[in-house]
């Protein structure tokens, strides 16, 4: 997924759409907004980031999961099998992006890129709702996908590259 920070207005529509699509309990969320301000009035810069699980290629949450509930599914999406999860929270400790939480029903929950929608060829709910069209989702292995082209033609960065997790959320600048 690529997120265009030049267009995001930080409205948090992605957060609400995720909650209603995935029935996320009140008080929790799978995605969130970060506002970055730099400088001194009136010489300022600001951008917003819509953040979620980075679906890392080298995912520490998967490596540390004692039951195998956390796994990398086909297409590179990091998932948690609810029935296999014992709620030990080792994955939460290991995630440098703080993208996971314990669901009130006892299992660990996080962004799934709306796997139930992707399976049907739809976009994640956050991508389809965004009023600024700042979220791009697609297959990074396909050089002609919208997201691959965006990464080819624009400057981008990833979060916490030093953690060595090979994150798959790209922030366009």
């Amino acid at each position, binding site marked *: 997924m690529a997120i265009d920070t030049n267009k995001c207005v930080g409205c*948090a529509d992605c957060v*609400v759409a995720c909650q*209603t699509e995935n*029935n996320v*309990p009140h008080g929790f969320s799978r995605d*969130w907004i970060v506002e970055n301000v730099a400088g001194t009035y009136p010489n300022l810069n600001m951008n917003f980031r819509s953040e979620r699980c980075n679906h890392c290629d080298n995912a520490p949450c998967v490596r540390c999961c004692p039951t195998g509930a956390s796994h990398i599914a086909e297409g590179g999406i990091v998932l948690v099998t609810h029935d296999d999860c014992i709620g030990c929270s080792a994955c939460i400790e290991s995630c440098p992006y703080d993208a996971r939480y314990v669901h009130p029903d006892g299992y660990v929950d996080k962004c799934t890129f709306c796997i139930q929608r992707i399976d*049907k060829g739809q976009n994640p709910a956050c991508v389809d709702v965004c009023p600024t069209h700042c979220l791009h989702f697609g297959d990074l292995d396909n050089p002609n996908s919208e997201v691959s082209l965006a990464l080819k033609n624009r400057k981008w960065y990833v979060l916490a590259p030093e953690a060595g997790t090979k994150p798959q959320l790209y922030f366009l600048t």
Partner: protein
Amino acid sequence: MKTRRQFIKISTAGAGVAALGLHSLKVKGLNLLGEENTEEPVSDEDMTATPTYCEVCFWKCAGWTYVDKKGRIRKIIGNKNDPHSNGRMCPRGTGGLGMYNDENRLKTPLIREEDDKGHQYFRKASWDEALNLVAANMNKLRKEHGPECMALFAHGTGGKIMSHLIKAYGSPNITAPSFAQCRGPREVGFFATYGEGVLSPERTDIRDTRCLVLIGSHIGENMHNGQIQEMSEAIDNGATIITVDPRYSTAASHSRYWLAIKPATDIALLLAWMHVIIEEELYDKAYVEKYTYGFGELKAHVKDKTPEWAYGITTIEPDVIRRTAREMAGAAPSVIVHPGRHVVWYGDDTQRSRAIAILNALLGSWGRRGGLYNPEKVHLPSYPHPPYPKPKRSWRDAFPKGKYKLASEVLTSGICDATIPNPEWDCHLRGWIVYGTNLMASLPDQKKTLQAIHSLDFLVVIDTMPMDITGYADVILPECTYLERYDILRDSPHREPYLALRMPAAKPKYETKPGWWIAKQLAHRLGLDDYFKWDNIEEMLEWQLKQKGSSLEEMKRIGVKKFHREYDDLYNLQNLEDCEFNTNTGKIELYSTELEEEGFDPFPDYTHHPEPPEGYYRLNYGRAPMHTFSRTVDNHNLWDLMKENKVWVNPKVADLWNLKNGQEVWLKNQDGIISIFPIKVRITERIRWDSVYMVHGFGQDNKKLTRAYGRGANDTHLISKVMEDPIMGGTGMRGNFVTFLKEAPANNRKEDKA
């Protein structure tokens, strides 16, 4: 176990990370449907989708309400064929189901009672009893004082049917805060110039513009969905955005130029821009010659309004003024100097709107692609009814003849004045119906509002939520939410005419009823059945749709229907087509003969406005994308995103006062009014050192709003000084100054709560 992070995080340079939003809540399985349910997502095919258009704000985006097999509303998704939403609801529209699920909703009709000890309380009543009581009061008032002593405050779609009822009853006093507290000056200023208003949604062709100029208009924080989508498209297309705002708004952060103007000096900048565009001959000569009146006078008027002159007033450097003027002219006619929406600031707002209108005319953007287009609506016929009775008096009679003559809509503040008994006028207003607007948060000068309310014989409030205003009602009628009701068809002006249908996705919860039903029931009890000849609203909608070659069945299937334009072209002045404007001269009036006739300045001029006294800061207020005024503050989905407002303070000011991030303070204004609740400090470079800022709508004082009660401060409460616009009666609200109280004040509740 590590706690869940806050999901909206604010990280500010040098200030570490300040949290805004959600803290970890270890509540067991109470999900978004407000019940014990932790089911997996339901696929769209296993749900039914019902058309609706949103009522969380006035943008009225069309969408689909998804209901699962158990009849529960699961989500709301935009309708792809709707030009307001283009298939994408904003956070409030997406979270609209929180309005339906809110357990704090008004549930039954309530009637005010008083016990032996004089203690007043609300008693639950049946609909019959409540409606009979309202009708008895209205019948009595009509008989004893005439129907013109009744007033209706209406906001939103349902207000239209209520207005129909009040017109049939015989009163012209139908008002909404959307005029005198919001877009009124803009409509009057543009009407004086072009003979037409800006309308809603605004006729701005942002999609195709090459230069967008925003003057205090914070698109992105005000979630005007279609405009935000188009601004995003304009960014993709490389359009230049110029934002004029003393606050570093979201729009400012997306702009090529941010002009951090000194508050209350915008007109000086606008005049200097005109000066540059005229003196450097950058204006659209053919357009100005063909369409406008008074160019020579304008040129003389702005002759001395140089960028150097404006620099001393606005603090914007002359070079920046020149460069931005040239940017605009370079993009012309695909340029928009945006008229804004909430424009009641300093009392000279009609004149500022005039300056904006004139600037657009010089750039030739009105009627042009990428400028301001020529919108069209469907012009839906009304269901046949007898003519309305002709009122013998109106609220205007409470004022000297001719005052507010240019107010093209009824003033809320005028209704308040006309309600307070006045020895020179013996027929003050005596009954109010307040529909869907929380006057305690929408009208400034609460003292006057309360004085008017306490003068009333009776007050009926129709709402979905126990907002502050309901505390003053004699009768409360609980309406069901927009997801549980039919309403009139949405017929709003756009590039192409469209109709949109709202129909119920679920049965009304509790004892709530739709607005149309309430209006029809009251009409029956007032002997006005002839005005409501349909049995239910579906019959009326069916009749209206038939007249336009559609049907209710079709609309239920598609939700939104596009019609063909019947009148002029979308860009009706693109090639200098002939056009007669609806003004005295038939031209675009750079020089306003209408204003001159009424004794006002035919050209906008800069006036110096008061500045904050020492130790005080100008109170600025605005919007957050996840809330609509006070109406959403208790919505659980949106409350999750933003629970309270904070007072933005520049770091220099914070140092001076030794304020810390997150510290609670009370605000005291220039008239000694103190916020009822404390508000947390947010230290940020995004605000000037002479101002503070807060998001409007918070600080609700009704304990029945269990989530919203006591969270943050109510800006309206602190806006006791109104800078009235002499041209049209707009209530300028940006001339209030506040200071900080670090200790809890002893008596900040001066008014008697009913």
